[in-house]
């Protein structure tokens, strides 16, 4: 056991020379504690995973030497019962993982909730998850750490679960050579997680959980997983043991891995052997021969290339700043940018670069023709890259804004948007075998060189140097460098491996593979037949044969003496010196040659011509004469010199064996021959040199032409890929067009039906007024059949009277606005004829559309409405009441003539004014506004509403208002019709009438009161009823008479003369009565009083006085008298010649009445003098009292 371990350690040390970090870790591990720890198995499970875990662990034997790390997606807030549960179903020790715990065999470690479990040198590491909840990928984290620390001894199992957690981590595991087991999706309750791993082509075995332990045990037992004994047991020539596999891959599958690092290849081939449970390369080769799918699997595994979006973010940031920024800044918008990502794997690196570039150019506001060539040797990789679909876990490295900008999220998968996808051209290409692209601005080739042998690395670097334009940049992986080719690249960033191309294009270092074409799987037969040898043209064969036969042994040297080419057998002249290998020709020159050769070379360079000299070279004790020619080569190889050696035929001289004569003769003959031979030789050499020059030139030309052709070919290959994608696009577009066509057919059907059912006659005309199309219903107006399409519309007679149709159509075409007109058909129907421009979807005018819409019914209705309106307007205009129409704001809409007459307010001064502004705010009547508001809001009407308002111009007016809301028709919904009746005159007359009635009543009552007084007084004075009757009648008659007089004088006054005469008239006896005086008009009241007084006097005269007999005389005189206090009226009643008068014993009512009437009522004096000859009454009263009238009472 110990010996084995030591042995392995020494082997690992030998390997450490090639890849130190990897081996150191293994060494440390190998010296770990007892018992030996087998593979560490990471188990990832999620939904439905408990059931799968139970099935797995129930089938697992107790002592396998393996340790299991179980990661599930657990609720971070709840205790996990998983430890307990698994403990019941497993014979192994189950423990909850804790930070720093040492991993021991036959243990199961379960992740606690809300943590991230990783491994580190045989210990568990437990950390807080850094990602937010919901974006955690704990399975990926575990698998990644297993890959990093356990390498080929990492075994990972993906069980039931939803999502894609684990897939990203498995990529690392595969890259490091670990083993991946995935649950058979049909046995999983949730198959998304297993499917994701299988679809990413990462599963080594797809099994039911209970079948996994068997595979695990076999894998653990296998030497690959157990250690490196397999390699070691083969002895020193172990590396060679994989050669048959590589040869098979090369010949059968077209994959040439000869340039790949042996260690990596060995590890991976052994891993496949481990998975196939094979222990010898021969067995494996047999399997490979019999199972082509294993060949493919192996090839895929060998080419594993781990990549990720923004892998090493700092490197990309640095690239972005130091390379992309200046690149975008230097180029003009619209320029081409060419980039190349060799070995692009599944495209992440290429898309990362494209995203950065797009971001840069958008920031700079430029648009570039971006060509990003992404190439890989694996078709399945390219397909995945072209699809551009990535699991959620794969895009975690993409910054959020770029993720949103460039990816569509579809059902848990992120898909690259077409814009970005179209920038990247994916093509199959093998960096080492296929010619490179050219004029590239940036080559990003990360983590490819590490897999290559140093020689292949140098070649790859040279190819990339060729591919880059002057000053172009190269980005390499973290562990890679341009070592060995420092002359080609200068370092821009040592840390992030950014380099810049130096110097001009170096064809000399280029080594384009001169294959007639790529070996594709189709070319297998040919490739095997040729056995990888270049096909040679017959002329080449001939030339080579000639040169080998006749040309002297030569070397081609540079001016500094470095040999670049050996031709023929140069061994007699040159030999390898001891010590470090050297190409210096002087160092190699054999004894005797060196000094002359140095001189000859110098001379040839200085003089620019061929220099001949002879030397004697000593070798193995004898000498040999040698003719040496140093010839500078013509352009373009002017820096090269050809040094040719030719043995001379002078055998070592053996003096004294022949006589002088013979010698002389022989010598001369030899001399001649030698001269001839020399001349011939010179010619031959010249010829040869010329030919050689030509060949060199031709070769150069062919090489460069070939380079160009190869580049062109590459471009063509790339173009082909573009064409194919274009073709795909066209196919897509075509299917879209087919769809669109279907839609159009449907739309056409719909439109046809619509037009047929609309009954609107429609005719489309083109720009020349020819018929393009017409609707079926237009046949009613135009005699048309389908064949009339294309004929000028002017050829047809319309059945409508529409002379303006064509001129309107012309106007529409010029002004591009529609024209409407009402036209009448010969059948008496009315149409709205509408002409509109015919616009195509590009907004181009292609003619006119004429539509005839039957409006007969509307037209008739409109006529009726118009008539009704005129009728109404005529009524409004002719009524004598002022009428006005108000809108909802009480703004005057119209007034009738009666209004303008009545309120002296013309239509101009009123229309459009608010009601309360009208006529200098004369109409600002709050109660009217309130009322109209009610009409508007409640829709009520009112009639006969009386208002009294003082108008500044017209004084107080009484008006009756009628208002109606005009509710008929939408436009009139809020109009008010207000009719005004001015009733001021009527109102005044009414007032006057009332006054008069009151006055009349008063008077009648007064009169009745007087009559009553007369009655009661008379009654009081009368002794008999006869007496009363007589007196009362006389007094009433007197009252009636004065009333007659007053009425006849229209109650304006009573003439004293008339009073006297009328009082006396009933008694007759005019011959005995003399009445004399001026006409004096007295006020009615004074007249009445005077009449009563005169009646008493007359009655007394007739009854007792002068008129009671046959002879008495009566004289009544009156006149005006001017006194101190103004004019007085003085009346004298004088009786004479009657019966003798006696003074009455008792003062009668008559006397009282006379006295009181004059004194009290008229303010005068009355004296009754009962003289013997007859009664004399002297009455005087002031004139002003008599005419003082009781004017109608003031109210």
């Amino acid at each position, binding site marked *: 056991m110990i010996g084995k371990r030591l042995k392995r350690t020494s082997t690992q040390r030998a390997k450490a020379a090639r890849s130190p970090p990897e081996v150191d870790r293994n060494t440390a591990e190998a010296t770990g504690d007892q018992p030996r720890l087998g593979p560490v198995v990471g188990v990832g499970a999620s939904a439905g995973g408990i059931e799968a875990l139970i099935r797995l662990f129930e089938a697992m034997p107790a002592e396998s030497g393996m340790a299991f790390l179980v990661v599930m997606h657990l609720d971070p807030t709840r205790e996990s019962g998983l430890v307990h549960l698994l403990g019941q179903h497993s014979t192994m020790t189950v423990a909850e993982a804790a930070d720093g715990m040492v991993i021991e065999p036959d243990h199961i470690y379960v992740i606690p909730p809300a943590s991230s479990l990783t491994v580190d040198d045989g210990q568990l590491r437990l950390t807080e998850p850094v990602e937010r909840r919901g974006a955690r990928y704990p399975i990926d984290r575990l698998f990644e750490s297993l890959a990093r620390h356990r390498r080929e001894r990492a075994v990972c199992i993906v069980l039931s679960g939803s999502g894609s957690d684990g897939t990203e981590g498995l990529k690392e595991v595969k890259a490091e050579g670990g083993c991946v087991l995935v649950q058979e999706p049909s046995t999983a309750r949730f198959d998304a997680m297993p499917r994701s791993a299988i679809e990413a082509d990462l599963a080594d075995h797809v099994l039911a959980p209970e079948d996994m332990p068997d595979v695990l045990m076999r894998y653990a037992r296998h030497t690959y997983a157990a250690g490196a004994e397999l390699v070691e047991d083969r002895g020193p020539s172990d590396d060679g043991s994989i050669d048959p596999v590589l040869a098979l891959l090369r010949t059968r599958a077209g994959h040439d891995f000869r340039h790949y690092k042996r260690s990596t290849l060995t590890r991976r081939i052994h891993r496949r052997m481990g998975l196939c449970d094979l222990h010898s390369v021969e067995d494996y080769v047999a399997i490979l021969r019999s199972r082509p799918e294993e060949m493919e699997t192996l090839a895929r595994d060998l080419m594993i290339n781990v990549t990720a979006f923004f892998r090493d973010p700092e490197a990309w940031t640095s690239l972005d700043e130091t390379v992309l920024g200046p690149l975008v800044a230097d180029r003009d918008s619209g320029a081409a940018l060419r980039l190349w990502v060799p070995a692009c794997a599944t495209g992440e690196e290429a898309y990362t670069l494209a995203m950065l570039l797009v971001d840069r150019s958008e920031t700079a506001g430029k648009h570039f023709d971006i060509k990003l060539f992404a190439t890989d040797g694996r078709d399945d990789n390219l397909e995945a890259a072209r699809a551009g679909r990535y699991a959620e876990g794969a895009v975690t490295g993409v910054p959020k804004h770029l993720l949103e900008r460039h990816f569509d999220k579809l059902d848990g998968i992120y898909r690259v948007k077409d814009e970005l996808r179209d920038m990247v051209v994916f093509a199959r290409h093998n960096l080492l075998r296929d010619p490179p692209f050219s004029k590239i601005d940036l080559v990003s080739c990360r983590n490819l060189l590490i897999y290559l042998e140093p020689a292949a690395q140098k070649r790859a670097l040279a190819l990339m140097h060729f591919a880059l334009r002057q000053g172009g940049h190269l980005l390499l992986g973290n562990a890679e460098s341009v070592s060995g080719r420092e002359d080609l690249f200068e370092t821009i960033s040592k840390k992030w491996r950014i380099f810049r191309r130096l110097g001009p294009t170096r064809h000399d270092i280029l080594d384009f593979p001169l294959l007639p074409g790529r070996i594709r799987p189709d070319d297998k037969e040919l490739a095997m037949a040729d056995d990888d040898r270049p096909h040679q043209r017959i002329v080449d064969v001939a030339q080579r044969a000639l040169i080998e036969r006749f040309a002297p042994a030569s070397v081609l040297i540079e001016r500094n003496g470095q040999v670049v080419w050996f031709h023929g057998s140069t061994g007699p002249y040159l030999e390898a010196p001891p010590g470090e290998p050297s190409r210096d020709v002087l160092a190699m020159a054999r004894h005797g040659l060196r000094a002359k050769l140095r001189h000859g070379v110098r001379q040839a360079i200085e003089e620019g011509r061929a220099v001949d000299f002879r030397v004697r070279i000593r070798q193995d004790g004898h000498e040999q004469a040698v003719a040496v020619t140093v010839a500078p080569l013509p352009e373009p190889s002017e820096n090269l010199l050809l040094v040719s050696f030719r043995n001379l035929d002078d055998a070592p001289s053996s003096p004294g064996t022949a006589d002088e004569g013979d010698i002389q003769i022989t010598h001369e003959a030899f001399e001649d021959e030698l001269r001839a031979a020399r001349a011939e030789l010179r010619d031959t050499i010249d010829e040869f040199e010329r030919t050689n020059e030509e060949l060199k030139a031709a070769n150069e030309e062919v090489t460069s032409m070939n380079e160009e052709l190869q580049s062109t070919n590459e471009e063509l290959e790339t173009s082909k890929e573009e064409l194919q994608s274009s073709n795909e696009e066209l196919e897509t577009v075509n299917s879209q067009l087919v769809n669109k066509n279907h839609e159009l057919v449907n739309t056409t059907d719909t439109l046809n039906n619509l037009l047929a059912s609309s009954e609107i006659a429609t005719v489309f005309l083109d720009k020349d007024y020819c018929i393009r199309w017409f609707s079926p219903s237009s046949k009613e107006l135009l005699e048309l059949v389908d064949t009339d399409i294309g004929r000028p519309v002017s050829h047809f007679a319309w059945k409508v009277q529409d002379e303006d149709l064509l001129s309107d159509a012309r106007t529409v075409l010029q002004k591009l606005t529609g024209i409407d007109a009402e036209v009448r058909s010969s059948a008496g129907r009315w149409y709205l004829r509408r002409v509109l421009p015919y616009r195509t979807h590009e907004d181009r005018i292609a003619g006119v559309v004429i539509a005839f819409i039957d409006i007969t019914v509307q037209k008739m209705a409109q006529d009726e409405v118009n008539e009704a309106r005129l009728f109404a307007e005529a009524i409004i205009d002719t009524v004598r009441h002022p009428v006005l129409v108000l809108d909802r704001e009480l703004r005057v809409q119209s007034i009738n003539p009666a209004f303008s007459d009545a309120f002296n307010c013309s239509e101009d001064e009123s229309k459009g004014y608010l009601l309360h502004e009208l006529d200098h705010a004369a109409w600002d009547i709050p109660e009217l506004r309130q009322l109209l508001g009610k009409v508007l809001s409640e829709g009520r009407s009112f009639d006969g509403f009386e208002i009294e308002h003082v108008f500044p111009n017209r004084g107080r007016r009484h008006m009756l208002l009628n208002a109606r809301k005009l509710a008929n028709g939408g436009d009139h919904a809020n109009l008010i019709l207000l009719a005004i009746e001015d009733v001021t005159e009527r109102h005044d007359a009414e007032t006057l009438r009332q006054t008069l009635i*009151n006055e009349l*009543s*008063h*008077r*009648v*009552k*007064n009169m*009745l*009161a*007087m*009559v*009553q*007084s*007369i009655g*009661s*007084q008379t009654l*009081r004075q009368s002794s008999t009823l006869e007496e009363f009757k007589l007196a009362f009648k006389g007094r009433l008659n007197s009252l009636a008479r004065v009333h007659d007089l007053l009425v006849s004088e229209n109650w304006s006054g009573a003439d004293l003369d008339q009073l006297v005469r009328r009082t006396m008239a009933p008694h007759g006896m005019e011959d005995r009565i003399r009445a004399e005086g001026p006409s004096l008009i007295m006020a009615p*009241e004074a007249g009445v*009083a005077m009449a*009563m007084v005169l009646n008493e006097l007359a009655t007394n005269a007739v009854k007792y006085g002068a008129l009671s007999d046959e002879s008495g005389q009566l004289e009544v005189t009156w006149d005006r008298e001017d006194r101190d206090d103004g004019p007085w009226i003085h009346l004298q009643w004088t009786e004479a010649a009657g019966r003798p008068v006696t003074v009455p014993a008792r003062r009668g009512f008559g006397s*009282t*009445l006379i006295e*009181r*009437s004059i004194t*009290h*009522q008229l303010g005068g004096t009355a004296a009754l003098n009962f003289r013997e000859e007859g009664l004399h009454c002297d009455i005087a009263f002031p004139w002003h009292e008599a005419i*003082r*009238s*009781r*004017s109608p*009472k*003031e*109210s």
Partner: protein
Amino acid sequence: MLFPIEGLAGLRILVAEDEMLILLDIEAILDEVGCEIVGLVASVDAALTTIRLNDLDGALLDMSLHGKRITPVAEELVARGVPFLLCTGYGREPNDEAAIRDAPRLTKPFSTDSLRAAMNEAFKSVART
């Protein structure tokens, strides 16, 4: 006698009436009931003078004397606390002055009895018992 008239006897009464016949009638009635007639006036001015010069117990007033409203007289009487009776042919009107509106009325034409009854009612505050 429907109404006692003893209380009215001896009351000093002013009569303002421009219609002489009615005045005579009133005068006769007042004589009958035993009132002392302080003045018989036919004008507003005369009535006011009489009021100021005499000590009155009551007054009978026509609404209007020669076209002049009796209002100043009525107001003077109200001010002096002298009761009065309006004898008028006019009915009550809304815009009558306060002194007129609140005074007791006797509508013309009136009978002797109705005058007596009205006086009895109007002058009961000053009636001699």
